[in-house]
């Protein structure tokens, strides 16, 4: 086998593996990416039912209702618009009314958001970054501390930002 043909085979192998990788990435990018939306986005944009998305905002005070068989209903708000969410499963430990939450799932034709994943903050002083940004966009959030860490920062209490969006499935 000549030097030239060996080099050709090497280049062909590199090229085909690279093409395979690029092809796979492009294919996956078109189908498996989930966008983040706030309740106002959903109200304004008219998102097609069945689209998978991440909904973020605050859990509205007094909206949490527990149904039979570990089904929970709650309302997510960004203070301008609200979305009803239904979820079947165990809620994260730090899921609270009045606190930030991110839910992943699909929007049903009636406007109900059926979540299969609910993510909450994992530290008292932490708000999911997407939620903080979305609330800021609504002008409802005053930044209290360092950028990205919207919690008020007392001198000794740590503004630790811990365990953010991990999915419960």
């Amino acid at each position, binding site marked *: 086998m000549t030097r030239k043909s060996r080099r050709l085979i090497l280049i062909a192998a590199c090229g085909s593996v690279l093409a395979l990788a690029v092809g796979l990435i492009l294919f996956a990018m078109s189908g498996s990416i989930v966008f983040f939306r706030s309740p106002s986005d959903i109200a304004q944009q008219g998102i097609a039912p069945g689209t998978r998305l991440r909904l973020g905002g605050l859990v509205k005070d007094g909206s949490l209702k527990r149904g039979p068989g570990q089904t929970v209903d709650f309302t997510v708000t960004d203070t301008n618009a609200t979305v009803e969410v239904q979820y079947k499963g165990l809620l994260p430990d730090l899921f609270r009314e009045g606190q930030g939450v991110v839910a992943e799932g699909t929007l049903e034709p009636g406007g109900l958001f059926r979540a299969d994943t609910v993510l909450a903050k994992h530290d008292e002083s932490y708000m999911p970054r997407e939620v903080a940004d979305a609330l800021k966009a609504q002008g409802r959030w005053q930044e209290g501390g360092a950028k990205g860490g919207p919690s008020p920062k007392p001198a000794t209490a740590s503004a630790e930002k811990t*365990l953010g969006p*991990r999915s419960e499935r």
Partner: protein
Amino acid sequence: MIVETGHFALALALAISLVQAVMPVWAARSGDPALRQTASQAALGAFACVLFAFAALTYAHATSDFSVQNVVENSHTQKPLIYKLSGVWGNHEGSMLLWVLILTLFGACVAVARNSVPPRLRANTLGVQGLITFVFVLFIITTSNPFSRVIPAPLEGNDLNPLLQDPGLAIHPPLLYVGYVGFSISFAFAVAALIDGRIDAVWARAVRPWTLTAWCFLTLGIAMGSYWAYYELGWGGWWFWDPVENASLMPWIAGTALLHSTVVMEKRDALKVWTVLLAILTFSLSLIGTFLVRSGVITSVHSFATDPTRGIFILAILILFIGGSLTLFAWRAPLLRQGGLFAPISREGSLVLNNLFLVAGCATVLVGTLYPLLLEMLTGEKITVGPPFFNSTFVPLAIPLLLIVPFGQALAWKRGDVLAAAQRLFAALAVALVIGLGVLALTWGGPMMAPVGIGLGAYLLIGSALEIVSRARGYGASRTRSLGQIGRRAFGLPRSAWGTSLAHAGVGVVVIGIAAQGWATEGLATLKPGQTLTTGPYTATLERVAPRTGPNYEEAAAYLTVRNRSGDEVGQVETGKRFYPSRKMAVTESGLLTIGASQVYASLGEIGQDGSVGLRLYYKPLVLMIWLGAVVMALGGGLSLTDRRMRVGVPAKARGRALPAATVPAE
């Protein structure tokens, strides 16, 4: 006082590491070998200083010295001692100090390992290592000082995040860091070779033990982190394709590629430029991982208090080392003497294919991890790239890679014979196919990929066993059929052969464990005492819910009895909800019942006023094989590390010839 001394020791380490960085350059200019020796002494000195600083911080944590800010924020008098000690690195400042401690430890090891590295290469390597140490110590001192004081000192600390109060914290970060930081040595060797403009098989032999050590620890660290997330986070997943996990996976993949390409370089004196580039890329990915995890661009359990100056500093370090080394590579690599091209069908050809697939897989993970960050930066659009993306990009690239693992082993160096290799692997292929089809028939109607994965894992396991057998049997005239002789010869095979086989078998075990998760089941119910929940072949009965008190928490624990299909008791599981008053934070403690390599996993939900509890129960068949397989892989690497070839240094190789081996170019 000890705290101030620790702070001073850190400042001293900064100065010493600068000496370590500068001296080899000076030595090269002045041609004075005595100056070169200074780099070794400086490396030891820097290690001693950082060790002292680390010990001082540990002392402050152990004695709950609340005049130190770092202790106030992360400790509590009632916290058990093990978490006081491991809490040293359960925060940003302390974990960076651990990072630097391991960095200087590796530097000291290179300085002490006298016989294995030519002096000039060692001095240059230590110089690069010194520069890395200097920059990171500067980062700690200027932006993340763990020794800053609080006046007046509070009486009580804020306690460590309850999620981190787990034995995993004592094990996972040190293992992972030894892996991450260990690749800095391969990087330093690569940069030293580029500066020197010379690279050969001696270089490959010198760098291989370090790469292998780092790789073994990184394997264990990732596995430990995965198991910790599995049992602590309470939703039964073992890998989330979370950016912080990807951050540790990427250097691991690149490091695996590097391990394989150094073999080619050592044996065949080829792939030199590529190996140098891989060494640079591997540590660059470690740095990117550090940046992602420590700068706060990604929120996770790993990101602590965020401070924009830190992110910018780490980004600057990233640009300095990645940009600098790649520029050096572009400038100097053409000077390196290229190795010859080789036949595509050969052991080295298959290793090139291995590298191609690994690098392509690593690239897909990198794209999936960085794309959301770049998109948000450029357009403001927030997206999530989750498991579906990685499952449809990384997995299709991993499967052909796994298929060629036993194949490459069966091919000879220089010129292989596909037909002969296929014949040797025929048994493995046939048995794996039978196993896969058998499993498929038994679980008909279940997920299709699981039997495929089981068959693939079996193929890898049998393939690595066959490799040992056929090597022991010998080739050509020395081929034997006597079982006793095969056994004796197998025993006499080099440890690296056994190590390779063991590591590849470990991959097979991991693949089987992952594939079996296709049959995992889960159940969810609201239970009152006496009621049951069934998932897979097991049924759990809620016996009672009772309060418990821990050292720094209150807990409501649910006691469950697990029975199999025929109603026999298999074991007891406890799962609880802990409340930590100091942080006002609740944490679910999941309960695990191990049955063989499988597990029943219970997670407690909301406790209702009427005494009912929410319960999630998972059945995870063969799940332990995922982590045991990783341990087997690391053991294989460790075994390979004890091989004679690794210990025999350069001078021994040049025995009988010129005394200072470094002056003998191996080319």
